[in-house]
């Protein structure tokens, strides 16, 4: 490994109002190295990378690229320094082709459309094993294909330093391995790669060195050979954390939710859910695992009455609720709570305070045409105490709260309505460790009360430890429903990629 230092960052600091996102960060990345930036959500990883790519400007501190002091004020500056950033949310224009996306903003011929340009793209594709069709429109591409376009785009622009922000969030374990092979090839060719992630196993597999961030500060930089998962976790959270989550024994009761042959079709006439069948009992936590976009969102929304159903049955305590919208469901006396993935965009009204958000569902129960807010205010104060929600006031817009507190507000409201069925999608995404554990405890509390819980999550470790059974979904189909105590992460990963459970775990699992 070449020890020439490509990037050196000294005491970089960035604040957003009162929030200190990065505090005196120090980092060194060598040529021909894969360097992982590891940290929990909210540790400052993205902010740091945005400064390297010229999107944010630092408040103070110095950046050296190949030994020279640079000032990266715009993405263009960053690009001219050979830095290529691949964002978690792709920056592609849907109605243009891959080629058009790749060459946009570049210097070159006045007229575009010549064959020569396509040639250059094809050469890059072959060299790194990146298959794309330059003339295909982005809106016709899969997520994996789009990511490939992003990588080609960045290399086309002469990137020697690649920064990837949570690149495997949308990939199956198998696609991840392909990506890693590409990265290894690039490393051989002399590029430096920075990969931002919070997934320990990937870090241990692909990186050479690891820098750990916590709460906006650099904690340590270590060589991969000299460390292990436990030590890294300690560095990430600051204390030895008991990775085990309390699982309460399930008391087997009645079936509260019976989904039979559910098929749901999206805007583009693609089957988002294909003949799904499963049962959920009271006092049980059923986890749902799957690569992002496998149909989890549609599943939740279909059950909650927010998504039109093509065929099949959804029975709540033997009453079919297909075709009912949320209002009907409430009127039927069904107490179902849905905590959506999109907290501010669906679960809450971002510009309103806690009080007005508490009213969101319960206002319909009030008589008359006027709204009375006293009960909502009392509830808000109660939740602040019970869940330790940190907010300047009950009327303060919830969008200004931190991610963890927003989730607490949302969960708090839903649990207050004493549901019998609770559907929750990615409830701990973006939360720090302590808040996450609070949520797990809350869920276990509900489980003890006999609530049936459908838990959609992305952390396979959590799913295995918290849930009783785990349903794996891939491309809208169920590939398996396994007992949590009898399955491991590799098996789940294979099922997430489409392998049937019988193949993965043998018959009779």
């Amino acid at each position, binding site marked *: 490994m070449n020890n020439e230092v490509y990037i050196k960052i000294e005491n970089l600091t960035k604040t957003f*109002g009162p929030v200190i996102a990065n505090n005196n960060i120090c980092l060194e990345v060598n040529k021909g190295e894969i360097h992982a930036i590891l940290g929990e959500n909210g540790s400052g990883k993205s902010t740091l990378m945005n400064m390297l790519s010229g999107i944010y*400007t*630092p*408040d*103070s*501190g*110095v*950046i050296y*690229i190949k030994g*020279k*002091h*640079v*000032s990266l004020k715009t993405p263009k*500056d960053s690009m001219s*320094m050979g830095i290529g950033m691949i964002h978690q949310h792709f920056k592609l224009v849907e109605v243009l082709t891959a080629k058009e996306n790749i060459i946009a903003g570049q210097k070159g011929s006045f007229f575009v459309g010549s064959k020569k340009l396509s040639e250059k793209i094809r050469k890059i594709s072959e060299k790194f094993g990146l298959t794309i069709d330059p003339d295909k429109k982005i809106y016709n591409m899969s997520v994996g294909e789009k990511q490939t376009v992003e990588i080609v785009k960045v290399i086309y622009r002469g990137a020697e330093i690649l920064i990837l922000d949570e690149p495997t969030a949308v990939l199956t374990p198998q696609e991840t391995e392909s990506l890693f092979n590409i990265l290894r090839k690039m490393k051989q060719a002399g590029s430096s790669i920075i990969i931002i992630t919070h997934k320990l196993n990937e870090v241990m597999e692909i990186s050479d060195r690891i820098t750990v961030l916590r709460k906006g500060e650099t904690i340590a930089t270590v060589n991969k050979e000299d460390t292990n998962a436990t030590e890294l976790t300690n560095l990430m959270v600051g204390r030895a954390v008991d990775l085990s989550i309390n699982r309460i024994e399930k008391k087997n009761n009645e079936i509260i939710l019976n989904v039979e042959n559910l098929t749901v079709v999206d805007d583009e006439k693609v089957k988002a859910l294909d003949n799904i069948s499963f049962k959920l009992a009271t006092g049980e936590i059923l986890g749902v695992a799957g690569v992002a976009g496998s149909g989890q969102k549609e599943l939740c929304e279909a059950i*909650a009455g*927010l998504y039109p159903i093509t065929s099949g049955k959804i029975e709540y305590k033997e009453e079919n609720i297909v075709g009912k*919208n*949320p*209002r009907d*469901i*409430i009127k039927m006396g069904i107490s179902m709570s*849905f905590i*959506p993935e*999109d907290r*501010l*965009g*669906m*679960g*809450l*009204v*971002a*510009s*309103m305070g806690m009080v*007005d958000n508490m*009213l*969101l*569902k319960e*206002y*319909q129960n*009030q008589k008359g*045409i*006027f*709204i009375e807010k006293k009960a909502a205010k009392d509830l808000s104060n109660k939740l602040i105490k019970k869940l330790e929600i940190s907010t300047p006031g009950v009327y303060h817009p919830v969008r200004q709260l931190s991610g963890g507190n927003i989730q607490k507000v949302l969960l708090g409201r839903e649990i207050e309505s004493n549901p019998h069925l609770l559907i929750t999608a990615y409830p701990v995404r973006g939360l720090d460790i302590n808040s996450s554990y609070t949520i797990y405890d809350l869920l276990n509390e509900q489980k003890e009360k006999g609530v049936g819980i459908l838990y959609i999550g992305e952390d396979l470790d959590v799913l295995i430890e918290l849930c009783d059974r785990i349903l794996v979904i891939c491309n809208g189909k169920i590939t398996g429903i396994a007992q949590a105590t009898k399955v491991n992460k590799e098996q789940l990963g294979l099922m997430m990629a489409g392998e049937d459970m019988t193949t993965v775990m043998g018959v009779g699992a």
Partner: protein
Amino acid sequence: MFRVVKRTDLTKKQSVSFRLIAILGALLTTGIFIWFLGFNPLQIYISMLDGSFGSMYRFKEAIIQTIPLVVTSLGISVAFRMKFWNIGAEGQIIMGAFAASYFALYWSNLPIGVLLPLMFAASVVAGGIWALIPAFFKAQFGTNETLFTLMMNYIAQKLIIYIQYGLWKDPKALGAGKIAMFTDNAALPEVFGIHIGWIITILLVVLMYIFINRTKRGYEIQVIGESENTARYAGMNVKKIILTSMLLSGALCGIVGMFQVSGVNHTLSYQVANGVGFTAIITTWLAGLSAPVIVIVCFLFAVLQQGGTFIQTAFSIHASVAQLVQGMILFFVLGSEFFIQYKLVLNNKADSIIKKEAV
């Protein structure tokens, strides 16, 4: 050199003072323009105020001009709260006027106590329906409402032109394209020398304030305006709420049409709305969609308008100078919004290094 940073600390008082500074800036700039033309700006401004406050008659005229602005703004504010960009107020006013005129012309033998409420009801329905059409397409198909409502304005206007020169043309007008004057029983009575529209307006302001802030429907409208997804998640019937709210929005504008034909013009012409539908968009926005503030802003605009007509006779300055002043104020206030939301911060000297080094 400078960076733009979002402000979090501005008090209401400071926001208001920013806006007032903006208005002063606008007056100053227009004043310079006026001085350039050879007039004394101070004299002009005072004269414009005189145009509304100089006599009881003029003051009443200013009120008469404020009324349609206020009610239209109320209507537009309902739509804007839902982020439904209703640019069609002009057309809704016209259709309300049209419906009211129908009764005034063809049912003129009814007693005034029956005719006026009938005209009122007709204008409410007509304005409401005119707004409902684009609302239906938006709710059902997601059709762009900004442009749809805009087009509806022109269709309404052309419809009236057609009627004015055709079906309803007054035979007594000797070939001129005019509709007959209404009979007395179709005219709104006056209180304090102003048609009773002013009383209805005050009532509407109060009602709308209560509606938005204290009722369930008002709450629902606010939620939908923020996020349709959240509204649907909460079990709200979004389509129904959009439709009924737009019905209300159009109805309010329709009422203005009735006011104008019954209380001011006593006849119908295709110019009945006279741009109020567009001016009201501006006043609504300037007032931050708040009912009481709408009253203040609309009054100021009416004073400006009135002032413009006044100085035309007094100084032979064209009335259009009022539009210039309005335009200027708008530009300045729009610009001031930026300084209310953001502040400029000097960049840290430490990292503004000569680019040459990096190359």
